[in-house]
């Protein structure tokens, strides 16, 4: 399933849950969905935890930093949800986050090689990238030693405080 479909499925499940559906089957061409919610004895289930605006707010995170598609410097998917981050961390990955607001650069200057790329072994304290803020080039150093698994932002992309930059498998 592609991300769009997964998103739709999640919404569907949320909706079924909100409406107190116990079981649900759907067949449509090559698509088959069958699901059954776990038993909830006491089932107070006001839950949803949902409560009120909180989930709205959570949802609204999606628009943050990405709300200006017309502005090319603002790239999508800047803020992974806490769940995603947690998942990565669960998988034993360490996330290097931006300590400041600014613009992410992969290399010391345009046209030069990136500080690091996926697969590189890095040392604690090694410079991984630059975040430019107010014309100052801030070198961002690794706070762990290990292997770079993924870069999580695009070159030239604006990043906010705490935004994940690299996933690193510590050694």
């Amino acid at each position, binding site marked *: 399933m592609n991300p769009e479909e997964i998103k739709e499925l999640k919404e569907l499940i949320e909706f079924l849950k909100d409406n107190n559906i116990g079981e649900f089957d759907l067949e449509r061409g090559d698509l088959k969905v069958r699901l059954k919610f776990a038993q909830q004895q006491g089932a107070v289930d006001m839950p949803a935890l949902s409560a009120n605006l909180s989930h709205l707010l*959570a949802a*609204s995170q999606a628009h*943050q930093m990405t709300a200006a598609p017309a502005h090319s410097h603002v790239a999508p998917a800047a803020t992974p949800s806490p769940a995603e981050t947690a998942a990565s961390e669960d998988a034993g990955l360490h996330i290097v986050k931006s300590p400041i*607001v600014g*613009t992410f650069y992969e290399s010391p200057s345009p046209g030069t090689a990136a500080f690091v790329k996926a697969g590189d072994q890095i040392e604690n304290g090694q410079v991984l990238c630059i975040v430019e803020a*107010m014309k*100052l080039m801030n070198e961002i150093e690794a706070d762990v030693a290990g292997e770079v698994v993924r870069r999580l932002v695009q070159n030239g992309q604006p990043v*906010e*405080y*705490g935004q994940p930059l690299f996933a690193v498998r510590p050694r």
Partner: protein
Amino acid sequence: MLRKVLIANRGEIALRVICACKELGIRTVAVYSEADRNSLHVRFADEAICIGPPRSAESYLNVPAVISAAEIADVDAIHPGYGLLSENANFAEVCRASNIKFIGPPPEVTRLMGEKEKARMAMKKAKVPILPGSEGVIQSEGEAIEWARTVGFPVILKASAGGGGRGMRVIRSEAELPGLFQAAHTEAANAFGNGDLYMEKFIERPRHIEFQVLADEHGNVLSLGERECSIQRRHQKLIEESPSLQVTPKMREEIGKTLKRSLEHVGYQNAGTVEFLMDEDGKLYFIEMNTRIQVEHPVTEMVTGIDLVKAQLRIASGEKLSSILTEPLTVRGHAIECRINAEHPEKFTPSAGKITAFNIPGGNGVRVDTAQYAEGVVPPYYDSLIAKLIVHGKNREEAMNRMQRALDMFVVEGIHTTIPLHRRIFADAEFRSGDFDTKFMERFFERSQPG
């Protein structure tokens, strides 16, 4: 008109600015600390950027982070709200250097008004009345008597070298001056190793009265009338109203002219508030000027019908006052604001935490400015103001009654608030009479002490 504005603030004032921007078709960028991720100013802005950890010093007061956010979001201007960076002239200068419009006066004016003694002198030069005092040390009883005769009794002697009440004496008649002068001198000398004294006019029962002004970038200044802010606890305003029962149309017109002249002279721009003390005879004395939008600006909005934050944005867009205020200024009715703080209503200890029930009063003549909501959280890092409850009535009596019913219907659970304190104040005869001064809360606490 400005195209896109970053709001360098949080809470109700951030939301207030977002409302004004939305109504003017200006795009908004919220900045927030990690503690405010679920705040309504984040929810309702067009874009939002996390700029740091919870502590203000590392987020909302972090100039590089704010400017950097403004640059990556590509905004035209920054609205600083009140508090935080709003009267920081250095921040205004960095904005200017970064080609971002700071919504406020030029840094030079912010700086001038920020230095209280310089501001007093500037206003005095522009013939704004200031509290009369000796400009230097009073050398002798004789000089003291001469000074006191000039300004009239009562006067107050203060130690040049220190504070805290030591070396301080209120003198109510010429007869008691010699004795008290000596006593003050000796006390000051003992306390600070320096017996120098200076003297000021003393106001037994001062009222805090302030005037709202608007000034455009083309040299035009207009006063929008006054607010009565005498209900204070430890210099923190609790209740504000407009108009003041003590300010006559003639006074309003005269002070308006004076402020127009003086603020045009200093090159003021933006909304601003000029604070005065009023003595028992209704005479006003300049204290200081706040060069930003004020917490209590809504009471002026309610009676004048003018949206002050929209006016700030339009002034910053280069508009003239004459195009912003197209109708002649009129005052309708009476408005009162209660500051609802997340504090214990008797002990005034801050009360952070999760709000479990939140019912906002509505209906005729009631306005609530808040960024809180049911299931929201009051973080422990910031100002305790969580809502402003503002009412408008055809006169002070109707406004007070309306406030009482609105306070009755304002339900906040999960944290303590000052709502119960406000209920008690609105049932107090002295408050209701309108005849009070800045020492009201001291008397109120004395008489309302249990037992």
